[in-house]
């Protein structure tokens, strides 16, 4: 299938982003190795008390921050890799070069989105378990991979849709992510003062943060995977991809 012809070039054009993500991943792993070497207990696990004794609150806080950031890494990797999925080509005029060839733009961008999503999934699917294995000597099992897949689906689909309409696709997706986190936190704390209809609509349109938190909870506490939450986020992501495809087929190449 000729749409696959651009795969090598797509990855080549994103090699800097891959290198930056790789550098960040190494930073996480280096932190985990350092913590393990410096403050591991008799079982080889990182001991928080020893961590406190070595570096006080700053070191403990730093490790907690690393852990929190690691949880956001699938989101970051997806946004970094998917940024400009279609908008870069529209800006550079490449989209027109594809459009005059007898190949479906849906196939070209579909293959690209799947490839970049797969790269983000493999990247994070390797980093998260490795970090856990180094730091605590075990990993959360398939829940890790389900969590990574959820982020890739939700934010990959959202970025793809925004990419057809805007050059600031990844930034807008990040804004949506932050908005949904804040919205979900306010909703949980019952601090939303908007009418129930509006509240439900906004919750429905924003990325499904509540379901993602549920999946993160299972990942963090080694609980069974909440498949209903995963199905919800997968449906959200697929709807976003479908809307992106529809927009791609209909929108002018200005």
């Amino acid at each position: 299938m000729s749409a696959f012809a651009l795969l090598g070039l797509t990855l080549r054009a994103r090699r800097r982003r891959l290198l930056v993500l790789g550098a960040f991943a190494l930073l996480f792993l280096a932190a985990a190795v350092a913590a393990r070497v410096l403050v591991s207990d008799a079982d080889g696990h990182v001991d928080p008390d020893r961590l406190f004794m070595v570096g006080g609150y700053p070191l403990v806080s730093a490790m907690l921050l690393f852990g929190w950031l690691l949880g956001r890494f699938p989101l970051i990797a997806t946004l970094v890799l998917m940024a400009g999925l279609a908008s870069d080509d529209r800006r550079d005029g490449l989209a027109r070069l594809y459009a005059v060839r007898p190949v479906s733009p849906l196939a070209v961008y579909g293959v690209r989105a799947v490839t970049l999503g797969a790269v983000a999934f493999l990247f994070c699917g390797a980093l998260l378990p490795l970090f856990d294995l180094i730091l605590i000597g075990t990993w959360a099992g398939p829940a890790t991979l389900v969590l990574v897949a959820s982020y890739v689906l939700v934010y990959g689909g959202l970025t793809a849709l925004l990419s057809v309409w805007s050059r600031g696709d990844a930034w807008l997706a990040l804004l949506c992510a932050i908005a949904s986190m804040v919205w979900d936190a306010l909703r949980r704390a019952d601090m939303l003062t908007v009418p129930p209809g509006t509240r439900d609509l906004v919750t429905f349109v924003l990325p499904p943060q509540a379901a993602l938190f549920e999946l993160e909870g299972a990942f963090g506490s080694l609980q069974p995977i909440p498949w209903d939450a995963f199905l919800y986020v997968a449906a959200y992501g697929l709807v976003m991809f479908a809307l992106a495809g529809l927009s791609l087929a209909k929108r002018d190449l200005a």
Partner: protein
Amino acid sequence: MIEFVGAGKRFVSGPRPWRGPVTIDALKDVTLSIPEGGAWGVVGPNGAGKSTLFALLLGFLQPTSGAVRIRGLAPRRYVRRHGAAYLPERFRVPGEWRVRPALVALARLEGLRPDVAARRADEALQRLGLEPFADREVRTLSRGVLQRLGLAQALLGERELLVLDEPTEGLDPLWRIKLRAILEEQRAAGRTILLASHDLAEVERVVERVVLLDGGRVREVFETALAGGKGATRGPLRYRLELAGTARELEEAFPGAVPVGPGEPGAYRVTVADEAELSTRLGALIAAGGVVSAVLPETEPLEARVQRALGSGGEAT
């Protein structure tokens, strides 16, 4: 083959807090019929609508009024089915791409098998003198070489319709001459070529008809010397006639002949409707004893015709 029927394109920018929506009529009521085969030029001042015309033709944009058809199909459908060769005004590909792999990938998008695509890419590299740059990253190419890469990708698919926006931009004189030969080759193969350019002298050398756009409207359609006897709409033809002997017989054969100037005795300017009339009148002149030493076609340069059509208020293209 290609028909624009009252086609128009209006761009409306979204309202901003400091102003309302802005409306721009990039093309207005364009009606053109372009037969299959042959080369057409599109010229006009900046903002005349040349690129928008091409965007409608290739289905990048939908007309807001009227219609565009290629072989009876909507442009987007035609292009999806048959493809088209296209060089954008500012050809760009990601700087990290290497020249040959980029051409191979774009050839693959033409629906070619991998081995055919590789062969076609190599042919294009050779044809456009890109072999020394085959393994270079695009970011390292000069403007002229990048433009040649743009031309190379346009020629990969051997499509029936070629649309080239400013093809000579950045090319050195040698490559302008080579491009002329390439376009002549495409024309001889029966392909339909449309090219937009500000270089009127160059346009005149490679196309048969020229569409002058101004303010989004078709101001005039000219024929160039290359149209040679094909068009019924062509204006009178002017020739420079040089006589070796006296001009006595000239009066009868060419009643409207006028001397070129006092410094050029024996040189006259004559006007005829077509080549057939020229031959008849020359025959009469020679039969009457006139001695003809030269007959040279005198075409008014496109630049002069464009300037006249645009009037003194028009901006040169």
